[in-house]
């Protein structure tokens, strides 16, 4: 659906995106990176607002720049908090819906449905200038999804939303992601992680990683996984058994004697061994989880490791 082939974009001497080749298909993809990593430039290349300096960008097999056929199938929620301030929420959404090519006869009903979808129906007559940041964010999302696009590009969509709003928008995006392609850019990793396991990580304009967060993590074998194992009062005994395993590099016992931090370079093998060990010695284990399987860790390892 989206193809970038050695795409680079420079702003004079400043690099935006550098030699990125990637193919993005259906489902939700999280676009991650620090400020200035090139997320917005990549989004502007995909949404046809920028042309690549070198290389090629194709969306639905076509060059997206100023391409109305691509825009018909694309919804875009920009990061910037800018509107036609004198308009009401409803007027703005009507304009955007009409501009998306929806027939006049359907504009009113589609506008109403989408205002309701983002929880803004009761504020429909409110001027955009008088809306809170969260409300404005909801309207931005509404204008992006209103024409039911096949491809949805959301640049920092959760900005300004309160926790309830984030949850609602997360649920909405998860629902939308079932039958279309969504790219969500964010610098808040846990938000992306809650939506998808597929990430595209940019750093200084370069594509650092793309794929399932766990698969990416598996590739980073020079950084051992840390697994937290919580047992009852037999922490020391369990530690002794675990340190004997070939898959374990080290075991640290926490002060309470119940929690162990195990370092392993072969997490899959370790999980199998752990199950066998606790069963064989009848050591109760309350919980265990990897602290390194989350996005934060992947991001940290890839960018700073």
């Amino acid at each position, binding site marked *: 659906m989206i193809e970038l082939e050695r795409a680079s974009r420079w*702003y004079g001497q400043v690099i935006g995106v550098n030699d990125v080749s990637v193919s993005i298909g259906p489902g939700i993809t999280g676009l991650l990176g620090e400020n200035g990593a090139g997320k917005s430039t990549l989004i502007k290349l995909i949404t046809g607002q920028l042309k690549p300096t070198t290389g090629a960008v194709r969306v639905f097999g076509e060059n997206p720049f100023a391409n109305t056929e691509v825009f018909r199938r694309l919804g875009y929620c920009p990061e910037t908090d*800018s509107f036609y301030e004198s308009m009401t929420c409803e007027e703005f959404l009507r304009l*955007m819906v009409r*501009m*998306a090519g929806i027939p006049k006869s359907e504009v009113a009903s589609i506008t109403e449905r989408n205002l309701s979808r983002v929880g803004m129906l009761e504020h429909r007559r409110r001027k955009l200038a008088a809306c809170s940041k969260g409300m404005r964010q909801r309207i931005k999302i509404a204008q992006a999804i209103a024409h039911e696009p096949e491809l949805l590009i959301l640049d920092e969509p959760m900005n300004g939303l309160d926790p309830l709003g984030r949850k609602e928008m997360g649920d909405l995006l998860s629902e939308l992601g079932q039958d279309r392609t969504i790219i969500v850019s964010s610098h808040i990793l846990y938000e992306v992680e809650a939506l998808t396991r597929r990430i595209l990580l940019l750093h200084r304009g370069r594509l650092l990683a793309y794929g399932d967060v766990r698969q990416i993590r598996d590739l980073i074998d020079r950084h051992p996984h840390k697994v937290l194992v919580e047992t009852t009062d037999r922490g020391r005994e369990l530690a002794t058994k675990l340190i004997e395993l070939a898959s374990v590099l080290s075991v640290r016992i926490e002060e309470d004697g119940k929690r162990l931090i195990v370092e392993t370079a072969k997490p899959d093998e370790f999980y199998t061994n752990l199950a066998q060990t606790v069963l064989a010695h009848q050591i109760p284990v309350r919980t265990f989880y990897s602290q390194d399987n989350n996005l934060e860790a992947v991001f940290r390892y890839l960018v700073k490791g």
Partner: protein
Amino acid sequence: MSLPEIVLWYLKDSLTSRRLLPAALLLAIGPAFALLFITFGFEPTEAYDGSVQLGIFSGSLLLLTIAHAGGIVTNEVTGRTISFLLTRPVPRWKLFLGKWIGAVTVTVLISLGSCILTAVICYGADVPANMLRRDLLVLTAGAITYSSLFALLSTLSKRPWIIAAVFAFFWESWVAYVPGDFRRLSVMTYLKQLSPHADLTQTESAFAPLQEAFQATPIDPMTCWNTLAVLTLVSLVIAVAIFSSAEFLPAEESA
């Protein structure tokens, strides 16, 4: 979205309270000059000539075209709303022309309203209809031509208003005093030629001896109309071509 819908959107946006006060002030420039001239005892013809020349042709017409046409692209870029427009399935030429027609319509309505009011203040019920008709027609032509030029500027520059203001208030008045045919490089020359009014502020120019030595050749009305038409068409075609193919990003995003 059709072209008329874009024009209507522009016109509706021009009716917001934020824009109505400046519009009313610009509408009042010509009539204000007329009241001033009448108060100081000028004859109706002199008062009308002076008001139309100073207040409308060299005043509100230029200010309106700078503000409206100069902002066609720039307002969207600086307001950072351009991304909403340029990611919609509406051809860029249609967006540009729709907004341009809207800008011309607003300029024409205010300029013409100002001219009619000025005429009524100066002449009362005995407004010379032919003269007024001619002025309204030439004002419309001026609005179209200047709007095309300034709309082109808005596709080329992030600060078109400064360039447009220098062009309108410096070049356009200065070049008229340059001897020979240099004045043909000014849009106002053609407008004045088509709608001649006595210039009440005209004093002995420093260029007078040169002007006498290098007499400018007169410009016939057909040449004036053709020049204005060609200028409009060329500016619009270039502007549409640029808008259709260039990138437009707010300054902080393109650095």
